[in-house]
């Protein structure tokens, strides 16, 4: 496979790099995210998540349904810390 098959557009990670990580033993989405930053960009894994799971499935032989997804945590999209601070100031003690 060619090197320029893009899996993670946000962090520019190729299919070859993902397959290399899986063969090194990083066989969950969460591990691959932590070591490569795939899924940590603006799309938060909405684009690459499925593609990475498919690669894990094809290399490990595990079915898609048996594989674990990313841990989902807020915020779902990027937000400036200054906006959060401003929100806290305006809302007073409730924040």
């Amino acid at each position, binding site marked *: 496979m060619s090197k320029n098959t893009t899996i993670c557009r946000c962090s520019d990670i190729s299919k070859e790099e993902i397959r290399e990580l899986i063969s090194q033993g990083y066989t969950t989405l969460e591990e691959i995210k932590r070591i490569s930053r795939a899924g940590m960009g603006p799309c*938060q894994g909405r684009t690459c998540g499925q593609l990475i799971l498919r*690669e894990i499935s094809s290399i490990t032989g595990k079915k898609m349904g048996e594989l674990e997804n990313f841990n989902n945590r807020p*915020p779902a*999209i990027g*937000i400036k810390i200054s906006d959060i601070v401003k929100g806290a100031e305006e809302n007073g003690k409730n924040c």
Partner: protein
Amino acid sequence: METVELLIIGAGPAGLCAAISAVSSGAKVMLVDRNDTLGGQLIKQTHMFFGSEKQYAATRGTDITKILLAEIEKYKENIKIYKNTTALGMYEDGVVTLARNDKYIKVKPKAIIVATGASEKVLAFPNNDLPGIYGAGAVQTLMNVYGVKPGNKVLMVGAGNIGLIVSYQLMQAGVKVEAIIDAAPEIGGYLVHASKIRRLGVPIYTSHIVKEAIGLDYLEKAVLIEVDEKWQKVRGTEKEIDVDVMCISVGLTPLTELLMQKGCEVKYVPELGGLVPTRNENYETSIDNIFVAGDVSGVEEASAAMVEGYLAGLCAADKIGFRHDDFKKLKKDYIEQLHSLRAGPESDKIRGGIAKIERRAQDV
């Protein structure tokens, strides 16, 4: 913190119908959407709908939005609409955080309907990041919302209903569709759409995938290859076609991340597009007072999304103490409408998928 009775996240077909249903039951609603126009995907659906009269059959998606917004207008004193507002987080203590332009807002609703829809699936093939390779949703947005032609010669990847309908819309806009391909051995969409396109001279190649895209600064060619019944590439079957647009229409996957943050149970159900929340017949998830409607609860057509919205809105309002005068009659009607929309042989997969996520019926 703003006080909210019912928060609806997403103002597409499901969210708009949920809002109408809940507010006509007497609940006060906050409806948020990340876009600056309401209607979700409906605003780019210039084609007429199938289904029956109750789901606005023979009406164009763009006109359905107008009908629904006119209905919402009648209840405007009880609906707070926040456009340009993205839900960021759903927390254990019931708080939901929203980003509205540059404002960070916290709300604590009594019930929530998540109607976030779905996102497009993508494909991994060499040079899949070349300019000119779009999702079908992006092509529809360019053409039908902004009036911009995406290019001149198109390869459509995916012969489901979206792929077929967008192909036809491209032709109406004067763009040449060189071919439609699908990895599956059969066309996934309705045959009436497929025949219409074939009559106009566009070949539909089933059991074909994209082997690679070729181009220096933008897409110039696509290389196709046949696959066998085990989805393996058949050597020597490559064909090259000159295209400057590749439109990827290989299905959608539910946008469940807010539900997963909250800890709602989800299951992997490929028939419904991927990870899907489990729910009861009222469209309430595994967590009390968190409801779902539309594609986020399993990818289907917009007609089903609207009926699911009406049903979830009715039941969510009831759950927080606002029972519609015709509650029982309406609920029965919505459930029957969903049954009839999913009755045909082409809905076998959908029915099989729903059987995996529907929890035992509750007494209401």
